[in-house]
């Protein structure tokens, strides 16, 4: 039983003369603060926990929801009159999750344990039957989401987050020391590589591509360097767990949220080390004998970029479009979901950042690109934020799309200056 979205209404619309409207920013740029020349509009709203998104070459949007909305976990959004606002919406897939990626004629989606692919027809209508390509991934509560991306050779990369903060004997317990070696790393805290076209693969069929990554949500394949880039969520609670060595302010600022460029066999050092962006050093974790001064991780690679702590990078996208000015070409956009672990200090993040790249390396400091998602001047606790950036995708015309998993808004950022 194959169900296609070949709906009579779409056929009708194709035969009707449509006066294509121009996409215009919303009156207040949808509440976002953007660099000069950019504008933003809300494509869709109130979708709920909109996690990652993917866009077809025709501009249709697929949204993966963390929690089901009306029993569905994936939504297809279509804009019939090309005014930038989604006017058709259909749901399928009865599971929540995070991953959503489109390559060629397949759409890939993840639950917290599996990855499913859906065949797309030539007009990118979707066969909602789905084919399970990966199953049996670990979900033990913490860091349970699975993000996905494909390379040029149709390998699919999946993160499996560690079900722990710092691999302590007792997770998040004051003074509890780290397990040696950390047993979590055999099946989590890393990236696994699978084939995109093989059914029912499990850990045994995969290549354990990278390790020592506590939790990755934002990841992207850089087509310029032909390598995988990931954003790690750094460890929490240095002061709660080791108040002898860290005060509340240090704990709010450390460790850095790191961008890594991965290769087969990469080790980024979790849980044994964390990265201190003030000292520019890999520091021994207090669970493994560290005190905020001792360095460690000689076998672990260095980050490509280090951002302030706890901002929770949930989306990563290398921009290859032609709409934005030259500065943005091949650079990285990062959606920071926003911190919680800085309390009682003010929270940080809740914006989309940008890092310029040249020849596959960062060519300047990171900057805030789009801000104002939270709707607040200062966020002290994350539930105050009205919107929280999560997923990123590039439209066929080079627009940047941002999903929000607090309220379920899909934003589209366009460059309007000539």
């Amino acid at each position, binding site marked *: 039983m194959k169900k296609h979205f070949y709906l009579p209404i779409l056929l009708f619309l194709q035969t009707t003369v449509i006066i294509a409207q121009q996409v215009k920013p919303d009156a207040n740029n949808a509440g976002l603060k953007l660099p000069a020349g950019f504008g933003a509009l809300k494509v869709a709203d109130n979708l709920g926990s909109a996690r990652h998104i993917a866009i077809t070459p025709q501009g249709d949007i697929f949204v993966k929801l963390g929690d089901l909305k009306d029993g569905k976990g994936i939504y297809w959004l279509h804009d019939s009159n090309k005014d930038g606002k989604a006017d058709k919406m259909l749901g399928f897939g009865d599971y929540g999750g995070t991953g959503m990626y489109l390559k060629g004629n397949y759409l890939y989606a993840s639950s917290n344990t599996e990855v499913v692919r859906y065949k797309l027809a030539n007009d990118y209508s979707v066969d909602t039957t789905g084919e399970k390509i990966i199953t049996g991934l670990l979900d033990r509560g913490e860091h349970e989401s699975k993000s996905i991306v494909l390379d040029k050779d149709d390998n699919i990369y999946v993160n499996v987050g560690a*079900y722990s903060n710092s691999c302590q004997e007792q997770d998040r317990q004051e003074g509890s020391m780290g397990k040696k070696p950390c047993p979590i790393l055999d099946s989590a805290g890393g990236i696994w590589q699978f084939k995109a076209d093989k059914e029912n693969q499990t850990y045994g069929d995969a290549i354990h591509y990278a390790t020592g990554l506590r939790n990755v949500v934002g990841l992207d394949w850089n087509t310029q360097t032909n390598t995988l880039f990931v954003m790690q969520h750094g460890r929490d609670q240095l002061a709660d767990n080791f108040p002898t060595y860290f005060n509340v302010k240090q704990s709010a600022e450390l460790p850095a949220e790191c961008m890594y460029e991965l290769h087969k066999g990469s080790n980024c050092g979790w849980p044994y080390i964390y990265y201190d962006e003030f000292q520019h050093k890999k520091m021994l974790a207090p669970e493994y004998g560290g005190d905020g001064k001792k360095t460690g991780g000689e076998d672990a690679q260095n980050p490509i970029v280090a951002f302030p702590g706890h901002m929770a990078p949930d989306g990563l996208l290398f921009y290859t479009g032609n709409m934005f000015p030259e500065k943005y070409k091949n650079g990285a956009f990062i959606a920071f979901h926003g911190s919680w672990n800085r309390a009682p200090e003010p929270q940080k993040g809740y914006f989309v950042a940008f890092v310029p790249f040249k020849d596959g390396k960062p060519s300047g400091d990171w900057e805030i690109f789009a801000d104002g998602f939270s709707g607040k001047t200062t966020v002290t606790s994350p539930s105050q934020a009205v919107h929280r950036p999560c997923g990123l995708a590039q439209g066929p015309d080079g627009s940047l799309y941002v999903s929000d998993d607090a309220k379920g808004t899909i934003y589209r950022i366009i460059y309007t200056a000539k």
Partner: protein
Amino acid sequence: MKKLSVVIIIITCAVCAASTQPAQTSKQKGSAIYKKYCLTCHQADGSGVPRMNPPLIKTSYITGDKSKLIKWVLQGSVEKVAIDGQNYSNNMPPQKNLTDQQIADVLTYIRSSFGNKSPAITSTDVKTVRASIN
């Protein structure tokens, strides 16, 4: 007769004061314990962290059965907690190193803050539950 009722009023007031005074002190002490052991995850306003750390505002976990709540704090949790159809995934470490009085104080604070209006918890309540799970 008039004198007698005045005496009764005085005694009643004294009893009132005696019963609210310790709860007040307990709440104040509980506030400091909350800041030290609970605030990072559950936040200053008790609103928690969406999808990760459960809110402490008007949920049955907080305002309901005392023993269940005390047990939760003593034993921690590695289970996903569902409140109003939302799962919360982070682990909670056991707080068994806190004294009976500290746990009573912090729970009294939580049960009478963030819009909650539930009765105080005493150190005897905590002692009883601790004995039952040891």
